């Protein structure tokens, strides 16, 4: 497949990855047909604010839209929603959509995202038990976010903790149940996890750590969560934030290589050269981490995938950033750069008691990641170092007498 042979592009999935791909292709001068297929009933929007300002009621959905709904027609992007793609015929390069219509493609982009894991417990189907990923999920939850309501969050990852923070800000009675012995166990160090545990506790969130939910109680609506150790917590609302599964159904159906997500190369090409996969559903080599394969669930990964695919189709090159991520809880802005997995040393700049500090993660003496709380300079500085393959020794990076910018400039 050469670039000049691509006249028809179909993008399945209209989250940030899919929508940005369409936009970047047009902005880059692609003149052919672009069809963007989404399952949700509204124009593509940003998900991160759903568990933050949207749930708080500070931002309407309209301001979450990536582009106004009218933009797609103006840019000659055929946006079809809510529409479900059900079958990919790779031999004939066609996508079948629900209802039987078939659409031909020269290049196909799979940006199908991920689906939240559901609790596999008796009572998980009761009214008042929710997962959290879409605007519809947030809309279903919001009327129940009233002062005094008893909220149980199952799972203390970023989504769970952000929802817990909003719950407390709106005066709910919040309990977080987590099977691990600490929150954020998969995504940060015990030290930083301890900081967030203390913050939430100070804000009035109760934690049941090492807690195993056994049954969701209730007759038609949820009334509580019974734990395996015999305890029972009353609940008006249960939100499960226990991770997501990449939506690989279409890829598996048509025989693409899938290993914890659709496997791609650095150009986001799947095992079929005419099909790309990006965003939460895709695993690709991490340039700054010895090309180890990882599947990232983040805005950065969604947008970068879109940029890479658009550049590849347009015959251009796209620079790759170090992975980045953020989480807002109360007045804390956590900014993360890099991948901390496998670290063997952590060094702190600033102290947690000031609610402003950065944790730098090292492996074999080299900086691999940062968690920065209310410390944007440390975040961006570390991101720049990781991106350019540079590092600073722990005793240097933690020297607060020298500004971060100066330290970064001195690194090699």
């Amino acid at each position: 497949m050469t670039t000049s042979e691509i006249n028809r592009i179909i993008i399945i999935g209209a989250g940030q990855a899919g929508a940005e791909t369409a936009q970047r292709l047009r902005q880059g001068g692609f003149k052919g047909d672009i069809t963007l297929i989404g399952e949700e009933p509204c124009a593509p929007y940003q998900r991160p604010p759903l568990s933050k300002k949207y749930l708080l009621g500070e931002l309407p959905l309209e301001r979450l839209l990536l582009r106004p709904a009218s933009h797609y027609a103006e840019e000659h992007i055929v946006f079809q929603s809510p529409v479900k793609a059900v079958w990919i015929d790779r031999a004939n390069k066609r996508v079948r959509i629900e209802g039987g219509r078939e659409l031909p493609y020269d290049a196909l982009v799979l940006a199908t995202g991920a689906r939240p894991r559901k609790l596999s417990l008796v009572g998980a189907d009761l009214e008042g038990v929710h997962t959290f990923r879409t605007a519809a999920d947030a809309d279903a939850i919001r009327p129940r976010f009233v002062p005094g309501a008893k909220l149980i969050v199952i799972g203390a990852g970023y989504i769970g903790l952000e929802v817990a923070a909003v719950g407390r800000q709106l005066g709910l009675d919040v309990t977080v149940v987590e099977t691990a012995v600490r929150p954020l166990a998969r995504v940060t160090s015990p030290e930083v996890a301890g900081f967030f545990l203390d913050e939430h506790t100070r804000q009035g969130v109760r934690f049941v750590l090492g807690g195993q939910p056994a049954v969701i109680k209730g007759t038609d609506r949820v009334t509580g969560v019974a734990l395996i150790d015999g305890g029972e917590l009353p609940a008006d609302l249960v939100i499960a934030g226990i991770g997501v599964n990449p939506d690989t159904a279409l890829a598996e159906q048509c025989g693409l290589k899938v290993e914890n997500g659709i496997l791609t190369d650095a150009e986001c090409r799947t095992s079929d050269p005419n099909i790309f996969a990006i965003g939460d559903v895709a695993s690709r080599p991490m340039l700054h981490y010895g090309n180890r394969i990882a599947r990232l669930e983040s805005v950065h990964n969604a947008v970068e995938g879109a940029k890479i695919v658009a550049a590849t189709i347009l015959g251009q090159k796209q620079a790759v950033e170090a992975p980045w991520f953020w989480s807002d809880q109360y007045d804390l802005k956590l900014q993360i750069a890099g991948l901390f997995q496998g670290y063997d040393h952590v060094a702190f700049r600033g102290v947690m008691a000031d609610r402003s500090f950065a944790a730098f993660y090292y492996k074999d003496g080299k900086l691999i990641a940062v968690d920065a709380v209310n410390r944007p300079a440390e975040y961006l500085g570390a991101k720049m170092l990781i991106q350019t393959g540079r590092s600073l020794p722990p005793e240097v990076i933690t020297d607060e007498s020298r500004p971060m910018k100066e330290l970064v400039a001195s690194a090699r």
Partner: protein
Amino acid sequence: MPKITYIENNGKEHVVDAPVGQSVMEAAVKHAVPGIDADCGGACACATCHVYVDPAWTAKTGEAGSMEQSMLDFANDVEANSRLSCQIKITDALDGLVVRLPKSQH
């Protein structure tokens, strides 16, 4: 509704209707002004919405906050009138605002 003029690095001008209460970044992104990436959607997490405020307007847009300034310190080609456009809130007083875009956001 206030109007904002965005001038791309190549000189191309975009005049956009900008609703009061939104940010200078949002108005640009909603009108697909090239040169403002704003990957994070205004969460002050990515520093890819860097603009230069026209000197005639810097008094009205005010100064960068401390978080914004820390982010700007790591942007390319930063000048005294550099701002992150996600942190400039549109008011009636900014009707006619002119901002210029840098060569690149990275």
